[in-house]
């Protein structure tokens, strides 16, 4: 079937009353769980799976689930900007400048640009999905262990350099993150590491626990010391929506973020995180005022938020065209399709064109719905900051505690969150930027696993990383960045010139 007839057919399915309703339901639920800490899209889809047996029509069920998935990515920016609470790894980068903007009374502009950026990025990615899905799917398969190693190592490098502070402190935090990620089972041998005889620790720490502790609770503990600081947030709400200047500043960040997110999102696993990191790094490099990054630069919100939304849409490419689920939430949608008797993969377009095109068409509609749903909400969210901190903080503590427990139904996670809160508090006191910690925690296991897998495959031969085109290119970029940055630092130290190299 021709793409256009397929798409028209898809819209005729997606625009029926029932499907519009379920698309809206999905977008709404997605936004809600994106805002609430803890409960992620994978767990929500799992909870709603029994409902899909009743819905009957598989396309309706999948339209709703897809809505939950990309809707959660939309909602995820809200808590990151308002409360410095990243719900998932891909939102960590948004916290850096988003929260600073909120502190300066520009929460509305940050939320607004995140919603607009997400809408544009979502639409760009769905357009890409419509026209280029099959050829790009093969690209996802080209990523073997050496390519993953090169990509995730590059991600680690970006994680260190993105924080404004000292590189040494960034590296220290990076290694703390890597160490925390090592608790549990060794990914290759299956040996137990750093558990001190505890059975719960065999499962390792959970990302949500770490992020909620270090960011959410850590921030609250730190704020308790200085009640005056929070006044700034509540008094200067300013204009709620982004201004024309904000748009002019961030439009290219949004487009670059969309393109990066689309391509990196196709790669199964870690796509969204790495794309948000890459987008942030690129915006900082392109900016005429890189010193504003970390202090509330709007491009630092617009770029990464667009990237992670584009990535959430393009992660459907390997699912729909190859039958490969790239992450936990997509795996749930995969499961839902299987239970409905539909096998995702190369035959999906031919065997179930209604599902393939119906879901893609619904994504155009869902993205528009999310914009309409989220823009008016910006005003309400900003009002939330008027709530006195003494009332807001305990509510955040309650929600994060419930959220952290809900991830794995384990009381232990609540205790580890408290441990991470202490860690986060200490880091703030000692002027360490916490951002590299959760990123290293997520990327570390991928780096370790892919490195050891590559060496198993090559029999210990290190040239495997440079002899393959994709990993070779990525390694070259890594080396260039390290050499460039080092040269830049040496020049600045010895030459004493203050002008940044752009």
């Amino acid at each position, binding site marked *: 079937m021709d793409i256009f007839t397929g798409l028209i057919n898809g819209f005729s399915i997606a625009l029926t009353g029932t499907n519009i309703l379920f698309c809206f339901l999905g977008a709404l639920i997605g936004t809600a769980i994106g805002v609430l800490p803890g409960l992620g899209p*994978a*767990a929500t*889809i*799992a909870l709603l*799976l*029994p409902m899909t*047996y009743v819905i009957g029509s598989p396309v309706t069920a999948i339209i709703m689930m897809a809505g939950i998935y990309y809707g959660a990515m939309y909602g995820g920016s809200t808590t990151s900007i308002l409360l410095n609470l990243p719900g998932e790894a891909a939102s960590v980068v948004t916290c850096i400048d988003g929260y600073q903007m909120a502190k300066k009374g520009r929460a509305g502009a940050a939320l607004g640009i995140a919603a607009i950026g997400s809408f544009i990025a979502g639409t760009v990615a769905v357009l890409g999905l419509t026209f280029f899905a099959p050829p790009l799917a093969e690209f996802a*398969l*080209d*990523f*073997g*262990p050496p390519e993953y190693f090169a990509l995730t190592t590059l991600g680690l490098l970006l994680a260190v350099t993105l924080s404004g502070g000292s590189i040494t402190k960034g590296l220290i935090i990076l290694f703390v993150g890597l160490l925390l990620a090592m608790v*549990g*089972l*060794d*990914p*290759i*041998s*299956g*040996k*137990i590491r750093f558990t001190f005889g505890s*059975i*719960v620790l*065999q*499962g*390792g720490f959970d990302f949500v626990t770490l992020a909620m502790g270090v960011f959410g609770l850590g921030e609250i503990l730190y704020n308790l010391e200085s009640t005056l600081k929070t006044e700034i947030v509540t008094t200067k709400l300013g204009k709620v929506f982004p201004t024309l200047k904000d748009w002019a500043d961030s439009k290219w960040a949004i487009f670059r973020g969309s393109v990066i997110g689309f391509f990196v999102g196709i790669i*199964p*696993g870690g796509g969204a995180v790495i794309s948000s990191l890459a987008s942030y790094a690129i915006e900082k490099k392109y900016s005429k005022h890189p010193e504003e990054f970390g202090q509330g630069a709007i491009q630092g919100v617009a770029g990464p938020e667009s990237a992670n939304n584009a990535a959430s849409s393009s992660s459907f490419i390997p699912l729909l065209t*190859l*039958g*490969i*689920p790239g992450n*936990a939430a997509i*795996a*749930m949608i*995969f*499961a839902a399709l*299987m*239970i*409905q*008797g539909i*096998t*995702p*993969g*190369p*035959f999906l377009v031919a065997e179930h064109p209604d599902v393939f095109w119906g879901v893609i068409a619904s994504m155009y509609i869902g993205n528009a719905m999310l914009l309409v749903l989220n823009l008016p909400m910006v005003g309400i969210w900003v009002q939330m900051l008027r709530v006195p901190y003494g009332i807001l903080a305990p509510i955040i503590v309650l929600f994060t505690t419930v959220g952290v427990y809900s991830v*794995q*139904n*384990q009381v232990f996670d609540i205790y580890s969150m408290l441990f991470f809160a202490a860690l986060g508090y200490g880091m703030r006191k000692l002027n360490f930027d916490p951002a590299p910690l959760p990123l290293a925690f997520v990327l570390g296991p991928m780096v370790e*696993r892919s490195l050891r*897998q590559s060496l*198993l*495959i090559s*029999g210990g031969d290190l040239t495997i990383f440079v002899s393959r085109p994709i990993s070779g290119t990525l390694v070259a970029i890594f080396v260039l960045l390290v050499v460039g940055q080092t040269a830049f630092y040496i020049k600045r130290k010895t030459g004493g010139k203050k002008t940044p190299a752009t």
Partner: protein
Amino acid sequence: MTHMRKVTLFLILALVAMLAAGGLCFGAEKYPTKPIQVIVPFSAGGSSDLTARTVEKFWTKYSPQPMLIINKPGAGGVLGEEYVVRSKPDGYILYVGQGSGHDLVMPHLQKMPFDPLKDIAPVARISIHSIVICVSGKSPIKSMKDLIAYANKGNKVTAAVSTAAGSVDLVMRAIAKRANIPITTVPFAGGADSTTALAGGHLVIGGGHPSEVMPHIKAGRFRAIGVALDRRDPTLPNVPTLKEQGINVATWGSVKGVAVPLGTPPEIIEYISSTLKKVCEDAEFKKAMASISQPIDYLNTKDWTAFMQRAYKDYGDLIKELDIKI
């Protein structure tokens, strides 16, 4: 005032009486009187989870109370099972995932917080499926004989396996031992990851459950060259077993069994076991299981208990023979 007090007292007494009567009533009512919690020791979307959810869908057809699925992943299944072992044996905690491997394989490799044979009560088996050995669709290897010839020519055989010391890893190591060829097993973060890596042609062979590899086999991206079961897998009737191809390797693949905490009353075990039997015989259920490539193979409590003991011993012998240590 006294009047008010009398009314209050009367109300309290009435309430107590009602509660007592209610309690007695509930006591007399037949099990189950409230939803049954089903603990799945793996994350949502995996084959154990899919099986549990498919059972859940049909359970209410034969039981007045629904199932409530709770995923408790971690430590390769040990965490979820430990939770069940420590739960109250009142019949409202059910465990789907017995026989998954962590309880049959891991005890031979490391210390466990419980005895998987003695500390939990088996109820029934729902399903069993094979490990399918696959190569890339473009590969010149068409059978196990080809694979052995390929290895004997000095080519390196790398194998994508789901996890270290997992069921696929054991099968690969057993093939290497019995066919006397070197195989380097490369563990991934689960079945979906290892299948994707094989689909990309990054390794020579791989293996997985039919539910994981079937979409790729249908697409021609994979070729199945053997089944590691002592009989052919009903979802892949054309693929010969390893034994048929002269390699004496047959494992229990992936077993989906049901258990309850030790001390659960026998009549409740009987109720669950017989209800599951009805579910397994349901025509719609059979169709649903076929769509997730999960063959139904029901065993009652007695046979399932015997099966667990035998499989446990077999795995122990195999691990000793292959000299696997972690």
